[in-house]
């Protein structure tokens, strides 16, 4: 049972991918992705309920943290995949895509989801690396889906920068392996490593941690190797952007969470904390600077992802159960909010034909539902109640002040304020004002349902986490465990 549950999150998407590969993209297979995501979610919930387990000779292992990440993947994938059929239909109608590309889209998105599921289920650092690199390769073609100059450019930058980053992480893994081998543990398995983490050589581990944080940080969209993100997210098809921004970044960050457990045991909490604080503040500064005079709403959303990964890194730097629970909640909240925003931005882009901010005026009067989703999504991302990002940011801030990191939290929140002001200004320009003569923007029911469901879930989570509370605490305990 446990084995099946662990295999299912990887298996369902792969089956769906196979389905798409065999039958092409049609009215039935278009919904395979959503079905697979639902299956994944169900399996993830099952894993969360049944507790830890392992499969495939210990290559895959699920604990509360993996289960939680699987839930995040499942939820966001469900949202993104339910909006996919309508999105692709509109693209097809506009001549931006063609049947072969749609089939490829179907296969690749599912492979993408499978790779992410594999990443959070893998029991070792090496497997995790392989899975994360696999996501890069798969998504490269999704980013370049439209075959335009911009799409190709974005894909190239994405692959080059992420490959470099991930290569640095690989070197870090090699060094961890070296340090581990030296104390007689020739393995990259999480549990084994963390059991022996206290004895790992600090000199080697320091270099390794720097490389791992930089490397996985690249894929997680953290500064300084963040620059691929706005390009890739603005060029990918909206559902893919939602998946990339909503979960891919977090999955990459999941690696840092795992690494931190080992690093803290080997080096004490100070080193990783300092490193993550620097990276987090740098990300926030970059976001604040580039959002001030932003001209493109998709890039705006992408930079906002950098901001949130910065906040997540900040929370991780603080450490402790409260901060890590907040980080995990933030990951889910951000996934929901950001996918809603990318889906609505994609819809908007299809309707307006431009992703320039000044091309959109008076949206609230023109398309209330779309504008409402966009506005509420932005409010959620600005960390306002009732959305769950408020609770998580508050948790991070509380934990930060309790840990004596008030001097970091305060400037971070000032930067968040600048970001909020910039986002507010752009949102004002786009949403408010008299209706433009261009007329209403119709919205397919499936997209509307996805948007509303995402926002509602985010809001409900902000009011009460309900049964997720225990899972959050257990997962946070795993991520913050000290031997």
């Amino acid at each position, binding site marked *: 049972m446990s084995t099946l549950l662990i295999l299912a999150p990887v298996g369902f998407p792969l089956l769906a991918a196979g389905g798409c590969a065999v039958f092409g993209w049609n009215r039935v297979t278009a919904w395979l992705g959503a079905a697979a995501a639902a299956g994944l979610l169900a399996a993830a919930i099952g894993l969360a309920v049944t507790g830890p387990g392992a499969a495939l000779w210990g*290559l895959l292992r699920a604990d509360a943290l993996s289960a939680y990440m699987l839930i995040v993947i499942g939820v966001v994938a469900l949202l993104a995949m339910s909006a996919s059929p309508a999105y692709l239909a509109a693209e097809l109608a506009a001549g931006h895509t063609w049947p072969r590309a749609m089939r490829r889209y179907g296969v690749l998105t599912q492979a993408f989801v499978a790779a992410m599921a594999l990443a959070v289920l893998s029991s*070792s650092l*090496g*497997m995790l*690396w*392989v899975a994360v*690199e*696999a996501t*890069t*390769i798969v998504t*490269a*073609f999704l980013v*370049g889906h439209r*075959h*335009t*100059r*911009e799409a*190709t*450019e*974005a*894909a*190239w*930058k994405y*692959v*080059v920068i992420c*490959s*470099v980053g991930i*290569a640095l992480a*690989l*070197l870090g*893994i*090699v*060094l961890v*392996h*070296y*340090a581990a*081998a*030296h104390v007689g543990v*020739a*393995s*990259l398995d999480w549990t084994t490593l963390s059991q022996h983490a206290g004895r790992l*050589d600090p*000199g*080697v581990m*320091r*270099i390794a941690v720097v490389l791992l944080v930089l490397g996985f940080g690249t894929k997680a969209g953290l500064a300084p190797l963040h620059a691929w993100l*706005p*390009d890739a997210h*603005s*060029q990918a098809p909206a559902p893919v952007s939602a998946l990339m921004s909503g979960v891919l970044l977090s999955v990459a960050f999941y690696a840092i969470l795992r690494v931190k457990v080992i690093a803290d045991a080997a080096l004490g909490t100070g080193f990783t904390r300092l490193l993550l604080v620097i990276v987090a503040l740098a990300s926030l500064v970059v976001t604040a600077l*580039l959002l001030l*005079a*932003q*001209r*493109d709403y998709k*890039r705006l959303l992408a930079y906002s992802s950098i901001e949130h990964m910065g906040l997540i890194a900040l929370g991780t730097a603080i450490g402790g159960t409260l901060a890590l629970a907040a980080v995990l909640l933030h990951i889910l909240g951000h996934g929901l909010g950001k996918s809603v925003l990318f889906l609505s931005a994609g819809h908007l882009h299809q309707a307006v034909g431009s992703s320039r901010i000044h091309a959109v005026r008076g949206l609230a009067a023109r398309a209330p539902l779309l504008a409402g989703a966009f506005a509420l999504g932005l409010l959620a991302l600005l960390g306002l109640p009732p959305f769950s990002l408020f609770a998580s940011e508050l948790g991070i801030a509380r934990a930060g002040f309790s840990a004596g990191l008030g001097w970091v939290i305060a400037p971070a929140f000032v930067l968040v304020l600048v970001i909020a002001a910039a986002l507010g200004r752009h949102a004002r320009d786009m949403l408010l004002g008299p209706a433009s003569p261009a007329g209403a923007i119709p919205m397919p029911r499936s997209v509307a349902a996805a948007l509303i469901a995402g926002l509602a879930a985010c809001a409900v989570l902000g009011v009460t986490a309900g049964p997720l509370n225990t899972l959050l605490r257990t997962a946070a305990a795993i991520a913050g465990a000290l031997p």
Partner: protein
Amino acid sequence: MTETMFTLPPSLYVPLLDLACGAFLLTGMMVLWRRDLAAIVRLFALQGIALAALIVVLGVYEQDVELVAVGLGVGALRAGLLPYLMRRALIAGGAGREVRPVVNVATSLLVAAVLAMLAYAVAQPLIRLSPTPATQAVPIALTVLLVGFFVLVTRRRALSQVVGFLLMDNAITMTAFLTTSGVPLVVELGISMDVLLAVLVFQVLTTRMRAAFGGTDLDELRELHD
């Protein structure tokens, strides 16, 4: 089974190791120097051979058949398949030259010297942990890693960037073998697969780039900006 292996005496092992490492470093540095893309690909292939030789020497010294086999596999991939793929891309696009790198060749070489010093300084803790002839060569791997990164930052042609990336990858593989005789096999396989796929992706993208931009000068890729 082990007794049937040919044993390598330390007097021979260390010079051989150093030779392979030296070749590895030299080819890496030469990439910075040469402008002809075809030559760069050749240099990369040579480096692949040096890497394979290094692994084989290690394997023979440690009397590990598996390691020797891995070494041969690595050689096949990095000196055979990958250069082949690149050469095909090169032929498809017509041979080209790295006309005007972002940082010129002379400066690049000086930077490489500085990077070598840095790599040496950084690698000290690694050597200190277990001072063997193999680990003492780790600074070379790190130098090549940094040089590879530098190539990525300063070279304008798509192919040069691919080579830069692969230099980094070679350096990492070398580090892995120098320090612990490689990561677990499953992982090693996965890594090789990924590298291969990455190169294929690069190749596809290069083709598309050529179609869209009429060339592979990465400076043309400036449409997405703030």
